[in-house]
C-alpha cells in the first residue's frame, strides 16, 4: 500500500486531470442531451484546436490565450455548419454517431497529413510551474483548467436553468412539438447550442495543447472515458458532467497508484457499467 502522501498527491492530480474529462464531456453532454445528437467528432475538433494552438505558439509565438480567442469563435462556426448538415438531412441519434465518427476519422487523417504522426509537445513557461500546498504539489495549468471548467459548467448550468433561452432548449429537448407550439424556435436554438458545444471543444483543445502530448491517434484516447463521464454525469447536465469527470479522474488516479498505471482504463468503465446496471434515479 502506498503512503498517505502519495495517495493524497494521486488524488489531487486525479481530480485535476478529471477537469479535462469534465471539460471535454460538457460539449458532448449538451449536444447529446439537448439535441439528441451524439458528436464523436468533438474529440477531433478539440485536437484540431490543440494543434492550432501548438502551431500558432511554436511557429508564430502567439500566446495560447490569444490563439484561443481566435480558435473558439472558429469552432463555433464549425459547430453551426455541422448542425446545418444534420438539420438538412434530418439525422437521428444513431446516424449522427456514425457520421461524426467519420468526421473524426477525416480530421484525424488531415491532422496526420499536416503534422505527421509524431508526438508533439508544446512547452511554455507555465508547463512546469506548480503551487506547493503542504506536502502536495498543484500544477498551475491543471488548476487553471479546473477553474475554467468549473466556471463554464456553473455558467452553462445557470444559463440553462434561469434564462428563457436555456429553458426553451430544455423544453425542446423533452418534446420539440409541444415546445414549438409554445413558440420555441427549436431550430435556431439548436444552431446556437451546437456552436457552443464546438466552442467548448476549442477551449478544451487549448488546454490539451498546454498540458498533454499531441499525436493524431490520441484523439481516440479520451473517447471511452469521456463517454463514461457524459453518461454518469447525466445527459444535458454540464455541472453533472464536470463532477463525474472529477470523480472518474480521481478514481483512475487512485487505481494507478494502488494497482498499476495500465489498469486505469478498467476503472472508468467499471464505474460506468456499475452505474448503468444500478440505474439510479438521478441518471
Amino acid at each position, binding site marked *: 500500500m502506498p503512503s498517505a502522501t502519495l495517495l493524497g498527491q494521486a488524488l489531487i492530480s486525479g481530480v485535476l486531470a478529471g477537469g479535462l474529462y469534465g471539460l471535454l464531456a460538457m460539449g458532448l453532454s449538451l449536444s*447529446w442531451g439537448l439535441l439528441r445528437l*451524439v458528436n464523436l467528432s468533438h474529440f477531433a475538433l478539440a485536437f484540431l484546436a490543440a494543434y492550432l494552438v501548438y502551431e500558432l505558439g511554436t511557429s508564430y509565438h502567439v500566446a495560447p490565450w490569444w490563439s484561443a480567442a481566435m480558435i473558439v469563435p472558429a469552432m463555433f462556426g464549425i459547430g453551426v455548419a455541422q448542425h446545418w448538415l444534420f438539420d438538412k*438531412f434530418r*439525422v437521428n*441519434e*444513431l*446516424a449522427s*454517431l*456514425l*457520421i461524426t*465518427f*467519420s*468526421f473524426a*476519422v*477525416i480530421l*484525424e*487523417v*488531415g491532422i*496526420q*497529413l499536416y503534422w505527421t504522426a509524431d508526438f508533439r509537445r508544446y512547452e511554455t513557461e507555465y508547463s512546469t510551474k506548480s503551487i506547493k500546498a503542504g506536502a502536495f504539489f498543484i500544477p498551475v495549468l491543471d488548476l487553471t483548467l479546473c477553474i475554467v471548467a468549473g466556471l463554464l459548467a456553473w455558467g452553462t448550468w445557470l444559463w440553462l436553468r434561469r434564462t428563457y433561452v436555456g429553458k426553451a432548449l430544455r423544453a425542446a429537448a423533452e418534446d420539440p412539438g409541444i415546445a414549438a407550439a409554445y413558440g420555441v424556435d427549436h431550430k435556431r436554438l439548436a444552431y446556437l447550442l451546437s456552436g457552443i458545444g464546438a466552442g467548448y471543444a476549442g477551449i478544451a483543445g487549448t488546454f490539451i495543447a498546454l498540458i498533454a502530448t499531441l499525436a493524431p491517434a490520441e484523439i*481516440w484516447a479520451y*473517447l*471511452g472515458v469521456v*463517454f*463514461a463521464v457524459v*453518461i454518469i454525469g447525466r445527459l444535458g447536465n454540464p455541472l453533472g458532467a464536470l463532477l463525474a469527470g472529477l470523480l472518474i479522474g480521481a478514481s483512475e488516479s487512485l487505481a494507478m497508484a494502488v494497482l*498499476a498505471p*495500465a*489498469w486505469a*482504463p*478498467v476503472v472508468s*468503465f*467499471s464505474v*460506468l*457499467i456499475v452505474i*448503468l*446496471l444500478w*440505474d439510479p434515479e438521478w441518471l
Partner: protein
Amino acid sequence: MNAARDLPRLGAVLAIGAMALLPMARLPAFYDSFLYLVFFWISLSTSWALLSGFAGYFSLGHAAFFGLGVYVTADLTTKFGWPFLATLPVAAALPALLALGIGAIVFRLRRLRGELFALLTLSVTFVIATIILNTPIDGGGGIFMSAVPLPDLMPTPTGTIYLLGFVLCVITLLIAWKVVHSRLGMGLFAIHDDEDVAEAKGVPTLRYKLTAFALSAGIAGAVGGVHAMYVGFITTSGIFELTVPLYVVLMSVLGGARSWFGPAIGATVITTLLYAFISGGEAMVGRAIVAVILISAILWLPEGFVPAVKQWLARHRRAPARAPLAEVAPVVPAARPVSDTVLLQVRGATKRFGGLQALGGVDLDVRQGEILGLVGPNGSGKTTLINVVSGFYPLTSGSVSVAGVEIGHLPAHEIARRGVARTYQIPRPFVNMTVLENVVLAATFGMEDSSPFRWGGGASPLSHFVRKWPIRDGGVMDDSSDAAHDPSVGVKRRHLPRRRGRKASEIRDEALHWIGFTGLAGKEDVLPAGLNLHERKFLELARALAARPKLLLLDEVLSGLNPAEVDNAIRLVRAIRAQGATIVFVEHLMRAVVELSDRVAVLNEGRLFALGAPRDVMRDPRVVSIYLGKAYAA
C-alpha cells in the same frame, strides 16, 4: 423436387466447391491473402448484423468478441500446445458465453437501447483489452504465432488460411440466411421495429436477443481464431482497434444491415477499396475515403445498398399475380352464448409507479364468451389494467389468471402464448414490415394450441373457425414436442418460418384470412406508413385475431374514427365475438359501450367502481357523478 429448382442449388454447391479449392491452382500468395481478407470482413460484418442489423441493437463492441477469439487461439496454441484447429471451437464458445453474460444483464434493462447499448459494448471492449494486456493472457509483450504448426489442408500456408476463412464465411452466410428465414429472424425484425409490441405478440424477446448475440459473438470469435494465424504477431493495440467496429458497422450499413447478404456486399466493396489504397501506400487517405463513403451512404442511402436496389426493382416490376384470397367463412351471429365459466379472474390487482397508485386492488371476473366494456374517467386505470393483464407492466401485488392459470407474473410473451391478445390505442404496427408480414408475425407467435397449459376447453375458441378453411397436409396443428419450442431447432429443420408444426403457407393463409376479415384485403403488401388511421386500427385487430386469442383486450379501437367507421368497427367486434372470443374493451364512446357490452365495469381512481348491465350502470347516479360532476347526477 423438380430439376428446375435443384439446378441453382447444384450450381451454388459447385461454385462453393470450386472457390474452396482455388488455392490448388497455386495463384500468387497475394490473391490468397486478399481473398482471405474479403472473407474475413464478410464473416465479421454479417455476424455483427445478426444482432445489430436484424434486431437493431447497435454494438460497437464487436472487437471484444473477435479479440477474445484471437487470444483464445493464440494462448491455447502457444502456451498450452493445443493443435490450432482444436482451438477454434473454444475461440467461438468463450465469446459466445461472454455475450450471453453481458446480454443476460444488459437486455433486462429497458433503457439500455440504442446508443447506450452501443457505448456499453464499446466500454466492454476497453475493459477486456486492458485485462488481457495486464494479465499473462498477453502480458504486454504480444504473442508470436510463428512456431505454431498450420495443418496442411492446402499446398501453401496462405492457401490453408484462405480455405479456413472461406469455410467460416460460407458458414456465417448460411447461418444468416437461415436466421432470416426462420421464426428467430422474424422475431428479431419485430424487435427492431417495436420491442414491446413484439413481446406482447408472443416473441420471446429476451431469448431471441440472447441467441442472436451469442451467435454473433461466437462467429466473431471463430473468425478471430483463424485471424490469429493470419496475423502472426498479436498485440492488444493491434487487435482491439477501433477500426474493427468502424468497418464492421460501415460495411453492414452500406450493404444493408437488415438483409442477410447486404453486409457481404458492403464488405466486399470496402475491402477492395481499402486494399487498393494500402497497396498504393496511401493507407491514411484510404481511411479518409472510407469515412467519406460512410457519410454519403448514411445521408443518401440510410437503408443500405441492397434494400435500395430491392425497392428500385420492386418499383420497376409489375406486382406478381397473387393467389386468390382464402375463402372467408360467413359470420355466424352470436352462436355462442355467454357461459358461466370464468375466463379472466383478476384479484386484488395493484400497480404502483413510484408513489402513484394506478390500480388499487381491482377484483374482476370476466366470463367466457362475454364482452365486457371497461369505462371510467381519464386516469382511472383502464389502460393500466390492460397493460397488467397483457404483462406489459408487472403487477405490484395481486393476481391475474386466465382459465384458472395464474399469469400475473409471467413475461408478456408467455401470456400471449396462453391466448391473450391486445390492441393498442395508438396503433403500433411494425413499421418496416408489410401488412401481411405484420399479421403473419402475430399468427406465428400467437397462441400455442398445444401449450402444456392446455385449458379445459382444449383449443382456442377461434380455432374451430380457422379450421373451416382448407388446411394442407391434413391440418397438422398440434406438435407437442418440446423441441419445437426452441427457435434454433426450428432453424435446423426448415427454412421457412413455422409455428409448431404448421407450415409457412398455412400461417400465411391464416394471416390473409384475417386481413380479409378486417377489410384490409388488397393492402397486404403495403407498409403501415401507407395506411390511414382507420386501416391502422384494423391492422391492430387483424394482428390480435391472427394470434387466435381466448381473451382479446381492445384499447379504444374506436377513438378517432368517423361515425361510419365506428359502425363498421362495431360490426367487426360483434363478428369476432360470434366466433366465441371473450373481449374486454376500453372505450369512451358510450354508444358503442351500450351497443356491444354484455356487462360494463366502471373504474375510478384505480378501483372498481360499478359493475353490471350497461343500461343500469349508465343510469347509476354515482357513475354519472364521476363523469359529469354531482350536479348532473340527479
